[in-house]
């Protein structure tokens, strides 16, 4: 359950500055080293709405994710992450069920 302020692939961001691929790969490698699996999500595709800057579209990113290791995936095979509607904050709440 985490707000990593990091994304796994360029698909997890729209708008704004170009995604730093090396940073994505570094984060991906770190996730793999820890033996974690992204639980995925449904509902809204992105969990964070950024600022609107001149010359760029508004930025949306998927910063909040749920991760589990192999044992957790086996134990809770139906676990999934739901992205709830955003209220007040610029982050969406996420529900692991």
């Amino acid at each position: 359950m985490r707000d990593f302020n990091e994304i796994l692939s360029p698909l997890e961001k729209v708008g704004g500055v170009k995604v730093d691929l090396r940073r994505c790969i570094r984060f991906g490698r770190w996730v793999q080293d820890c033996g974690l699996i992204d639980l995925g999500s449904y509902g809204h595709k992105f969990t964070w709405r950024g600022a609107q800057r001149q010359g760029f579209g508004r930025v949306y990113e998927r910063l909040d994710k749920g991760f589990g290791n192999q044992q957790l995936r086996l134990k809770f095979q139906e676990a999934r992450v739901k992205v709830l509607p955003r209220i007040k904050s610029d982050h969406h709440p996420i529900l692991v069920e």
Partner: protein
Amino acid sequence: MIPKDRRCLLYLLNYTGLVFWNCRRAGNSNFSALVHDMKKINDFDILVVVEPRVSEAIADRIIDKLKFNSSYRIEAQGRSGGIWLLWNNNKFDIKILNSYIHCIHGVVDEGKDSAWLFTVVYANPNALKKKNNVLRK
């Protein structure tokens, strides 16, 4: 979630939902009302709030208002950071193993030899390397 067989049903009994929210300012007057609304719509027993941006004294008052049985929190460093972990302990118990500025490690003990580890992370965008070091421990 539709149970496919009886084993599934059994496991649904001690099913727990967990909500993680980067709320940006929990001091807002209708924050607790929002959480109660969220509880009505979605079924969850654990709530994680990061970046509450309130002082200790106010935090106590807000946590009381949210009506969870137990709570654990990491104080914010000035205006940034801070994690609240709130849960209802009637179905399961949570033990905190370890906590740092950016994360909480804990165990959810559901009884009957069923327990699982969890980690809540709020990573500061500027402290990337530090975060990795903390997590590798």
